[in-house]
């Protein structure tokens, strides 16, 4: 059987999620042996190009060129995977989606110039069908490897998107919100990080996006009844996953 053809593509992003592939130091050589690297610009100057069995897409779509590119990659790929928070929920650059154009124009520096950027930076699924999403800012290396293991076996990987609270409880942490009044997105954020922040006594800031049954309205009113103002909750949600439907809805409703 021939090896599956893998493409790794960068859109608007920090490079961190594709770096996670290279950061799988222990498994990297084995992995690269099981696939044919059809395109991975950051790692190789050899490219055999389309078609792709699996296309991993890092980054949000934020320019006209990127719109054309994502449509092309979709056509050329059997399976298209959104890799990380930018690709699944916009990334930090998507915060410009709420900026007034005029404010940005005043800030032009040093010479007025039109860079090729669209008004909004958006997740991949707003443009093409996405077959699978790996969440996180950055993605979890464990989930990434589980994804490859399952896909190479021809099965579909499954990840729990239950709240960070479950991982946090299993880690034996006292609850930051209940015990210390620290605003924490744990109850509404998907697990995947291993409760990294609460384990360091800091509130979760939402790297993996909304959990399966995130009830933001209820949680926000619970927090505000305990003295956390709405604007603080808004700032927490205006992170790397602001374009997830759940976070976006809350932000737009509450300003």
């Amino acid at each position, binding site marked *: 059987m021939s090896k599956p053809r893998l493409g790794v593509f960068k859109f608007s992003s*920090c490079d*961190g999620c594709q770096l996670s592939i290279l950061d799988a130091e222990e498994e990297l050589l084995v992995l690269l042996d099981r696939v044919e690297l059809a395109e991975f610009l950051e790692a190789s100057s050899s*490219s055999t190009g389309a078609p792709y069995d699996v296309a991993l897409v890092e980054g949000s779509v934020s320019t006209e060129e990127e719109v054309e590119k994502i449509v092309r990659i979709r056509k050329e790929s059997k399976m298209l995977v959104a890799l990380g928070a930018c690709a699944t929920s916009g990334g930090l650059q998507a915060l410009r989606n709420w900026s007034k154009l005029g404010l940005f124009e005043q*800030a032009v520096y040093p010479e007025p*110039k039109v860079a090729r950027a669209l008004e909004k930076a958006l997740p991949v699924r707003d443009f093409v069908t996405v077959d699978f999403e790996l969440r996180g*800012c950055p993605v979890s290396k464990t989930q990434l490897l589980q994804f490859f293991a399952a896909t190479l076996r021809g099965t579909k990987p499954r990840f729990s998107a239950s709240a960070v609270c479950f991982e946090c409880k299993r880690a034996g942490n006292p609850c930051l919100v209940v015990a210390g009044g620290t605003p924490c997105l744990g109850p509404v954020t998907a697990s995947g990080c291993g409760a990294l922040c609460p384990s360091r006594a800091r509130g979760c800031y939402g790297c993996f996006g909304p959990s399966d049954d995130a009830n933001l309205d209820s949680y926000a009113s619970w927090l505000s009844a305990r003295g956390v103002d709405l604007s603080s909750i808004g700032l927490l949600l205006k992170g790397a996953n602001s374009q997830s439907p759940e976070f976006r809805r809350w932000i737009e409703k509450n300003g």
Partner: protein
Amino acid sequence: MARRIVVDTGPMARVEGEGSLSIVEQGAGSPEVKLNIFEPPRFFEALLRGRRAEEVPDIVSRICGICPVAYQISSLNAFERLFGVEIDEQVRRLRRILYYGEWIESHALHIFMLAAPDFMRVPDAIAIAKRDPKLVREALDLKRLGNSLMSAIGGREIHPVSLKIGGIYKAPSKEALASVLPELDRVRSSVQKMFAFVSSLERPSLQREATLVCLCDPARYAIDRGDIGSSEGLRLSPSDFEENFEEYQVEYSNALRSRTRTGGSYMVGPLARFSLNYDQLSPAARALAKEIGLEPPLRDPFQSILVRALEIVHALEETRREVKEYEEPVRPSIPYKVKAGTCYGVSEAPRGMLYHSYAVNGRGYIEKAKIVPPTAQNQARMEDDVRLLTPRILNSDVDEARRLSEMAIRNYDPCISCATHFLRLDIRKA
């Protein structure tokens, strides 16, 4: 003579982010060299406005997945200076170990996965692994060690979560941190081999003048703090950076560039650090430099890979010492009060000096942010280098011309994701 395109790389491989290089011959004049960065701008400086100072380190780390610690530290330096927080010495030590981890990881990635394939005339590290699997496995071990240090202190290697204004959220116990020591010992032999490998690579050379700029810290080979120094004898406090250096724009690139106020391009990164701070390199790193006859100052950009290898040796030695001297801090974080003002922070990212400045209002919200990443500062130099190499490039066949010109860019280990995200803004309606 008509215009002739000598090299047009298209999207360049093995750099972080997206850019291309073109060389166009135009009659008798000097050829036109353009480093075109088409990585989309992400407008971080604009979107930082209205955020709280305490959120900034986690936001700016997202500018770059390869050097997030550099962004966190430069921003923390700025705010801690403004708010008058003197952090615990042991916390400072933890931040340095985290930063050394980033240098090790980033340099190992550069040397083996991004740059070595050029020297060996192969497309990628996979091809090197086919020839010499042991070498690549040991290289990956080194890279992994860098990542382990970052995880030990930061929780994860990309976008670590432990640092905050005033200190660290949670300091590891002495025992927990000491658990990295066996791994540090294990890579000792890999490091020797790594250095032997790097110094055996057949390098082109390029002799040229260059103003070298980096941080200088009386306490150590500067990494987490320092004053700005240059090969021309300049010594500045970080707050004077903008008076002496300026950013400008060219029409074919989405990234701003830098020059000195007197108009000259300058160079930041490993060669500058080696040249200005050589005496502070660890003894083992200096011994290896001597072995291959490397002495400051260095201006040949093709020697950068050697200095990155030396800096790995240095970082490993320093880390071993710092881990042994570490005691759990009595005060992992110091409370502070926000204050209005403008603040400045610098540190040495793996690719060179990274400058931040922020205007903060009385409630601790950001009113203005300015970030000057190393790759933006080096951009003009990269083009200069390619221009100087054109006689050689013109005399080569197509493959060699492309190899040489791409190497001239990769010498700087450009992080295009970083360099681009600063253009203030310009949005065209869809």
